[in-house]
């Protein structure tokens, strides 16, 4: 880890504040003092999440960034109710995920499409599981394919699509049930840089149109800053929220935002906090 200079630290000071308030009053996620320890194969207890307190408001886009193995993905699974935390309190839409399964869409790093289903059937899978009738399903799938710019691709097989297009199908699938919350685990990590920027711009537009709250785990600082209302920086394991930085770049954000000095300034701020919080 490079030594910190006075210049690096300077812009960070303002950021060392308690978690900022969500943009709107309605909280989608409220977690307080979440801890999670998992058992390694050799029986050793590994504290992955040390103490995470985080609030996400309705329609808010929050990125979680931090060193590898800091429990970012675990945090996402805790929100999803797929992992139960060792300690702490979590409410998603006012309920504990352990009691009431929260409504959310989930996007993984790999598109994770079912290869025996065509694109439309993949996007319609959540509706199928919820018992939505075929005609309603088809109409909704059409809407979503249009939203992610894949109209006319419904009958294609997933393997006929590029990686970026497959990930768009995955996003459409996560949005079919119109959830108030979208959870994304490094959704664009496997894409090339150009496609990634393009996907960022499109996700930003989709988020603006639907008003879905998004929690995204990412390793890319630029991506986090470009998309987010707030960037949450986690420290190394056992992780804590090291900083919760508001990103006040004007919206809508487009291609030009990527090269802008404003984005660069925010990115540097995030980078500085990450260095201070224990390298990556």
């Amino acid at each position, binding site marked *: 880890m490079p030594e910190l200079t006075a210049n690096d630290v300077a812009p960070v000071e303002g950021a060392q504040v308690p978690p900022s308030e969500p943009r709107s009053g309605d909280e989608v996620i409220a977690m307080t003092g979440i801890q999670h320890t998992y058992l390694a194969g050799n029986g050793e207890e590994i504290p992955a999440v040390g103490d995470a307190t985080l609030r996400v408001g309705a329609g808010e886009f929050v990125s979680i960034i931090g060193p590898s193995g800091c429990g970012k993905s675990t945090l996402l699974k805790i929100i*999803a109710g*797929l992992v139960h935390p060792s300690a702490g309190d979590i409410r998603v839409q006012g309920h504990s995920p352990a009691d009431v*399964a929260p409504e*959310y869409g*989930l996007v*993984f790093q*790999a598109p*994770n499409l*079912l*290869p*025996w289903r065509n694109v439309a059937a993949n996007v319609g*899978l*959540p509706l*199928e*599981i*919820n018992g939505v009738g075929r005609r309603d399903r088809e109409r909704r799938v059409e809407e979503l394919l249009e939203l992610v710019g894949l109209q006319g691709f419904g009958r294609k*097989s997933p*393997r006929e699509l590029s990686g970026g297009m497959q990930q768009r199908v995955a996003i459409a699938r996560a949005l079919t049930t119109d959830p108030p919350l979208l959870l994304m685990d490094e959704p664009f990590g496997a894409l090339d840089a150009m496609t990634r920027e393009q996907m960022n711009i499109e996700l930003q537009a989709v988020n603006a149109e639907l008003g879905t709250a998004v929690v995204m785990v990412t390793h890319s600082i630029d991506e986090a800053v470009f998309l987010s209302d707030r960037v949450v920086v986690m420290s190394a394991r056992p992780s804590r929220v090291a900083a919760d930085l508001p990103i006040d770049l004007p919206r809508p954000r487009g291609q030009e935002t990527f090269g802008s000095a404003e984005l660069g300034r925010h990115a540097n701020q995030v980078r500085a906090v990450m260095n201070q919080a224990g390298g990556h």
Partner: protein
Amino acid sequence: MSQTTQQLDDRRAEGSSRHVGDGRTPVQVRRRAAVRRRVTVWGLGVLIPVVIVAVWQLLSQLVGAYLLPEPLDVARKIVDDASSGAFWGDVWVTLVEVLLGFVLASLAGAAAAVFVASVPLLERLLMPYIVGFQTLPKIALAPLITIWVGYGINSKVVITALVAVFPVFVNVLTGFRSIDRDALLLMRSLRASRTQTFLKLKLPAILPYLVAGLNIAIVFAIIGAIVGEFIGSSNGLGSVILTRQASIDVAGVFSVLFYLSLIGLALSYLLEGVTRPFLAWSENRDS
């Protein structure tokens, strides 16, 4: 080279219309080469069986026709068998044993794999036994089965099923293990029920493995039926082989082998034809 590329190349070559020494265009040269290649493939296709029959004929004259009958004698025997009602009766018996054993093995193997895979603890506990039993040559159990089940068709069906069940079981189990963890997580996140997860994710995912297992099982089933008949039976193609062996009717044994491979081919193609529509998605894109 694919056809479209070929056409493109041809067009390009025509455009340039340069002439080779003897006045032929490059296109003509290439077409002639393609024709020559096709003739070669056809020629070899005819030549190989001719050579095999010729060598066979030669060998049979060298070692004596009573050890290695001449091709024509075998052909005559094959035709004789085809017109014999008794022979078709034996074909029928073996076919029934093979099919019953195969169906039994497929159902039992797949069901056992589904059961074992759905209880992770069971899989871990049973694995050493499964591996141990798998390495045992099941054929060696045939005499035991005959003691337990008797000499009728039942014992042949059981032996056939026993030989054919493992490829199905092991393949399906491997299929379950190959299911993507994230795909399972996706189903959990969608709050899919166990039945939904099975029908929409697990079943389609294991299908290519099941079919691979069935393809091995059908071949194994024929082995099982024949060996079962060797152990003790008065009908079926296995017993025909033994009878003909006893009377040193080598051409007759060859004829049975011919019909056995015919049965094997027919059943394999049938299986492939039935299962192919379900597997279109898993076929290699480039094929």
